[in-house]
């Protein structure tokens, strides 16, 4: 698609913010989320989890548990499919431990019983004998000589010789000659950064209800970002044909990437297969923290050279990511996103995927990118400070634009980084005075955005209203966006469209709702499906009029004769065509199935003011502005919501949130009281600016917006805090004790 084919103006519905179609369900408590399903004869599942960070499982004795009241089924790893390899094997191993428990909270067995309490009580009666093994949870320690080996032979052939077996994948990319570039610089700054793992923190714990009968047919209801993926993985783990398992996605209470895989779903099915009854499993919050995927923790070194005028001459980053006891850390994303905002002649980035005794990391909003931005944008800030340069002007000077060879390889098409920087510079926030004790931070951020397999169908009803069926769960108002785009194409009111999320039996494969792909890919598919339906509508009108279908246009919900026939017939409204569909050729349905590849990359610039209390080291965010390119905002209020939500999560990551492991390798803070996410009184209003630089890969220019918003906050806040505290903060979170210590050390030094 070229930019000429992109509609960027003249919209009637797109760009407005009507009430969402599922609004009433969600404000009345009627919407059914994962844990809200019940079935006749349903059992409740409970999972037995390892209390050890690393331990060989010598034996599992279920005799007492099996005899307990109400217990109907018990499963261990032996009850799952054995012939697995690659990522399916990794997921299986994470869902239920094999020979070895690999982290605190790793599942080792599961029970189904007639009540939640009976299942939990029985789980306590399962006797597991462990041989405790040495463990490691820190990324640098896990790479060091002598570190306990998580699993020998897990490394792939990308890893250079001589590294510890816990280093399982290696990435290197870039272009130019960084050494020559550093030699050209007037100032080179290199620093070391660390970030702790954080959790996506969706308020809805994982929950599912699974049925697998003796006929080999299964049903699964669960909270997920991608039910086709659940279908694919669960069927593999249970050794059944994919099509025999039908998965229905519940309403989803937040995911942020963390609900893109499976944890309890295969277990419910395995229990159901034995008990021959439906089995429901709901994780506790503690289980969510201990056993579902947090982010990677990182250790990073970033070195950047700059000329006195602000030109970056070279940049190099080394990014070590710990992704739990499996090869999975998104280190290549970290490496590839790190310098993407900048037009660099000499750049090199290296990534290490490191295993440790922690839960398998899962995607979290722009996985891997926020950490890189924290390190890179901190060094740029320090360079600006040393050279007396304005942070926005310096970024503008080096900003990537259309035609830039990206640090990660491709050449950028039309992108909107410069526009976000200019909008940030022009924003009153940037020039507002600061009070004593306050600092202002800036950061850019980048995310690729994804397309992926997408299938949408749009059926017209006899009254001329329309039903869209999509396969991407609605996490933040996407039904509204789909309905707006369909309304635009069909020329019928937004209210006349109902958007439903189909189960896996009702549409072709749909990739998970991730990678900020829903409004882009399902949106593109909705537009194309609507155009397909419009073509058919025009065909029906043409047949009635006895003219060539090519000579019929679609205008404002009506077929209109055009060209030589213009004016020959009255416009035929959609309702009239649809009323007769049965006798004019049958049902009218539009389809679209493809894997769109034109997801435009997205950039943002954030501005934040922070105030540091010198007595306690506590940071308050006093003002926050998000400027981000949306390509085209379909439903602006929900675009703003994505910006604000990403910023808020970033504020938590920057200031409070962290996984704290004890010396025993156990997670110390597995409840919301101790893993503190931002509450309403922690935050200011979050101002947003929607920049619209159309994406040539979408009919209306849409770029995904869900993820880029979490990339800049940690860096922007670190830059603000460093200014306010008078000392460079290089470790996240910037919790009060850490800031206080840094301030004390700086005074002492």
């Amino acid at each position, binding site marked *: 698609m070229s930019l000429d084919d992109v509609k960027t103006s003249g919209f009637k519905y797109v760009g407005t913010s009507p009430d969402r179609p599922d609004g009433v369900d969600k*404000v009345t408590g009627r919407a059914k989320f994962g844990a809200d399903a019940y079935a006749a004869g349903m059992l409740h599942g409970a999972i037995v989890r390892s209390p050890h960070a690393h331990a060989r499982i010598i034996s599992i004795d279920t005799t007492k548990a099996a005899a307990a009241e109400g217990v109907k089924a018990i499963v261990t790893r032996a009850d799952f499919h054995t012939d697995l390899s690659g990522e399916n094997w990794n997921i299986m191993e994470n869902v239920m431990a094999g020979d070895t428990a690999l982290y605190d909270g790793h599942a080792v067995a599961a029970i189904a019983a007639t009540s939640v309490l009976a299942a939990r009580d029985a789980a306590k009666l399962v006797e597991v004998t462990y041989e405790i093994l040495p463990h490691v949870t820190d990324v640098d320690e896990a790479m060091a000589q002598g570190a306990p080996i998580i699993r020998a032979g897990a490394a792939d052939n990308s890893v250079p010789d001589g590294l510890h077996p816990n280093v399982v994948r290696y990435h290197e990319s870039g272009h130019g000659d960084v050494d020559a570039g550093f030699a050209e610089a007037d100032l080179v700054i290199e620093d070391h950064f660390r970030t702790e793992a954080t959790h996506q923190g969706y308020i809805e714990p994982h929950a599912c209800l699974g049925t697998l009968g003796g006929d080999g047919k299964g049903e699964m209801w669960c909270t997920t970002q991608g039910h086709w993926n659940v279908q694919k993985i669960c069927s593999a783990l249970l050794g059944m044909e994919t099509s025999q398992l039908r998965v229905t996605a519940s309403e989803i209470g937040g995911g942020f990437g963390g609900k893109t895989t499976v944890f309890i779903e295969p277990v419910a099915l395995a229990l159901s297969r034995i008990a021959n009854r439906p089995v429901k499993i709901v994780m506790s919050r503690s289980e969510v923290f201990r056993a579902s995927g947090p982010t990677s923790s990182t250790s990073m070194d970033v070195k950047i050279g700059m000329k006195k005028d602000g030109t970056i001459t070279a940049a190099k980053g080394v990014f070590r990511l710990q992704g739990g006891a499996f090869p999975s850390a998104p280190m290549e994303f970290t490496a590839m996103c790190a310098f993407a905002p900048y037009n660099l002649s000499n750049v090199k980035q290296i990534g290490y995927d490191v295993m440790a005794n922690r839960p398998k990391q899962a995607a979290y909003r722009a996985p891997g990118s926020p950490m890189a931005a924290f390190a890179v944008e901190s060094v740029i800030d320090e360079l600006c400070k040393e050279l007396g340069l304005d942070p926005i002007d310096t970024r503008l000077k080096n900003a990537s634009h259309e035609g830039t060879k990206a640090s990660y390889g491709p050449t950028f098409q039309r992108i909107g980084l410069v526009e976000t920087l200019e909008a940030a510079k022009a924003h009153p926030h940037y020039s507002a005075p600061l009070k004593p004790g306050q600092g202002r931070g800036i950061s850019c951020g980048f995310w690729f955005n994804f397309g992926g397999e997408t299938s949408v169908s749009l059926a017209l009803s006899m009254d001329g209203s329309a039903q869209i069926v999509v396969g991407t769960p609605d996490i933040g108002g996407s039904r509204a966006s789909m309905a707006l785009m369909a309304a635009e194409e069909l020329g019928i009111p937004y209210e006349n469209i109902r958007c439903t999320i189909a189960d896996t039996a009702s549409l072709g494969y749909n990739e998970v709702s991730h990678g900020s792909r829903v409004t882009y890919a399902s949106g593109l598919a909705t537009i194309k499906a609507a155009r397909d339906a419009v073509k058919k509508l025009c065909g029906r009108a043409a047949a009635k009029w006895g003219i060539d279908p090519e000579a019929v246009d679609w205008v404002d919900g009506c077929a209109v004769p055009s060209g030589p026939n213009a004016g020959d017939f009255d416009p035929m409204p959609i309702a009239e065509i649809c009323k007769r569909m049965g006798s004019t050729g049958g049902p009218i349905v539009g389809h679209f199935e493809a894997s769109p590849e034109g997801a435009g990359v997205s950039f943002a610039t954030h501005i934040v003011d922070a105030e540091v209390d010198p007595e306690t080291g506590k940071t308050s965010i006093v003002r926050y502005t998000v400027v981000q390119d949306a390509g085209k905002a379909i439903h602006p209020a929900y675009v703003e*919501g994505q910006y604000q939500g990403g910023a808020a999560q970033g504020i938590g990551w920057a200031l409070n949130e962290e996984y704290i492991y004890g010396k025993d390798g156990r997670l110390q803070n597995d409840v919301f009281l101790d893993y503190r996410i931002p509450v309403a009184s922690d935050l200011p209003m979050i101002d947003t600016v929607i920049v619209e630089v159309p994406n040539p890969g979408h009919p209306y220019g849409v770029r995904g917006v869900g993820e880029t918003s979490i990339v800049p906050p940690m860096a922007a806040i670190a830059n603000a805090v460093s200014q306010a505290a008078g000392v460079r903060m290089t470790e996240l979170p910037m919790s009060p004790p850490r800031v206080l210590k840094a301030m004390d050390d700086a005074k002492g030094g």
Partner: protein
Amino acid sequence: MSKIHVTTSVNGDAVEFLCDPRETLLDVLRDRLHLTGAKEGCGTGDCGACSVTLDGRLVCSCLVLGAEAEGHEIGTIEGIANGEELHPLQQKFIEHAALQCGICTPGILVATKALLEKNPDPTETEVRYWLAGNLCRCTGYDKIIRAVMDTAADLRSDMKEAT
């Protein structure tokens, strides 16, 4: 273990149930009465997703035992709308896009309704502190706070007109 017989009222309806002494009010509402509007986000009193009122007082139903409901009046999200007619807060939450995933929404609505009944003219800071026990991971709270402030202003002007 023998079960406890409890007689109570939920959203004005007389209700009886049997529950295990260990079951929370949240468990009973959801699993026995199938009123699944109240959500369990934590089970430890930290997230507010399970917010209900007990004799008009805002409580976390995960911290109340089912047996403790005996003789009291429980109010849940299912009782906030008047039939088809949404409560002004519900309407404003939709209009302001104050929900993304919506899992926190029932708890936040129950909590803010309790706030506005106590304090019809709260400041932004008062709203933020009142809601500090209700976690929302999606919205950054901005649009929630605006929806609450806007509802409060509307309700105040309605009241003025009525007098």
